[in-house]
């Protein structure tokens, strides 16, 4: 029996899919573009000033109190350790007896168990001291190397900060072949100290990198 035209059902229930192709095209382009421009390392910067050579354009006028001479803390990095000096003279080696003949660095190198994680294919600095050993090969490797004593340096910095709470400046000098990494580590040690449970304490955040020590 024929139905009335109005009752004919010659259409299907619309079960239409969204046309996702343009969307997919968009995503296929966006993902590589974002992947390329994404950097997965977070970067930061450390402010460093150079010592005034000749006429520095914005050399700050010294506003030190006349009764207290500036500390002029200078950290000299050599492949034997750190030598700390102030305007009063060079600090003696930690633990050295007064009147010791050989004046070594204030904080000599120490031998310490180090993980090879950060030093694959090379040695931890100072390399001249460690190069007699085999190079770091596997990240799980852990061996005894000569290394800079950052803990002792930090302790020394704290003592100095206690004695000179106003001082914020630290001058860093280094031997020619000291690597950038070591210098940054000293800046890190000198910038801030954070004991557990304590407020972080600022030490000497203003770094001056002095060129040349030869």
């Amino acid at each position, binding site marked *: 029996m024929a139905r009335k035209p109005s009752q004919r059902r010659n259409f299907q229930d619309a079960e239409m*899919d969204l046309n*996702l192709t343009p*969307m*997919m095209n968009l*995503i296929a382009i*966006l*993902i590589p573009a*974002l*992947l390329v*421009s*994404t*950097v*997965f*390392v*977070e*970067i*930061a*910067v*450390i*402010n*460093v*000033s*150079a010592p005034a*050579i000749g006429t*520095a*354009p*914005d050399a700050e006028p010294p506003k030190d109190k006349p009764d207290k001479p500036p500390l002029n803390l200078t950290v000299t*990095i050599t492949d034997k350790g750190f030598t700390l000096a102030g305007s009063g003279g060079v600090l003696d080696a930690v633990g050295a007896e007064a009147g010791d003949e050989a004046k070594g660095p204030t904080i000599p190198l120490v031998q310490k168990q180090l993980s090879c994680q*950060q030093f694959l294919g*090379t040695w931890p600095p100072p390399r001249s001291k460690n190069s007699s050993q085999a190079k770091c090969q596997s990240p799980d490797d852990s061996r005894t190397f000569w290394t800079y004593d950052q803990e002792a340096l930090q302790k020394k910095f704290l003592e100095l900060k206690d004695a000179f709470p106003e001082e914020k400046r630290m001058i860093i000098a*280094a*031997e*020619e*072949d*000291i*690597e*950038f*990494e070591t*210098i*940054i*580590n000293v*800046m*890190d040690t000198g*910038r*801030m100290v954070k004991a557990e449970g304590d407020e972080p304490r600022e030490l000497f955040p203003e770094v001056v*990198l002095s*060129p*040349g020590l030869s």
Partner: protein
Amino acid sequence: MSDVENENVPEGINDLPDPDSFAAPAGSTKKPKKKRKIEEPTGVTMNSLLDILTIILVFLLKSYSTDPVTLKQAEDLKPPFSSAQLKAEQSTTVTLTLNNLLVDDKPVLRIEEGVVGEGDTSSNGFLVDPLFQALQDSVDHQKRVASFNSSAEFSGVITVISDRHVPFKLLSQVMYTAGQAQFSKFKFMVVKGG
């Protein structure tokens, strides 16, 4: 079908009952019922794929860096780790690796194992001439911009992106050269963490 072919067909083969007639009771004139087709979904379902892609997209957008100074990935450029927290700002950059010196990502000088050749230096070996030239150009450009646009003043800031193995000698040469080119504020780039 032609008649010639029919001659080869064995007789009686057409006498077999029509296969269609099996489906319908004999004598029925009704057409055999059309088999109801199960609707097969056409095409591949992409919903789950789209979900994944959307999540990746959001993740990438979130980690999209807007830092003005970006670190180019290179085998010989691994900045040291540091606990510094200061943000980088837009400035001239000088990139030091053990093999190359770059200013604003343009190669300026090839060096050997972090040592600048004798012929490229002056002033007691402290001034690296090609680098000085490149930095001078950059300063001139910035000053030209500053003369038209007062909000883009020349600030004397230079960002030093250096590999962790670069020796202090090269670093001090670069700092001296930058100082001669009127850069007075240095920013050393480091990787957060460590």
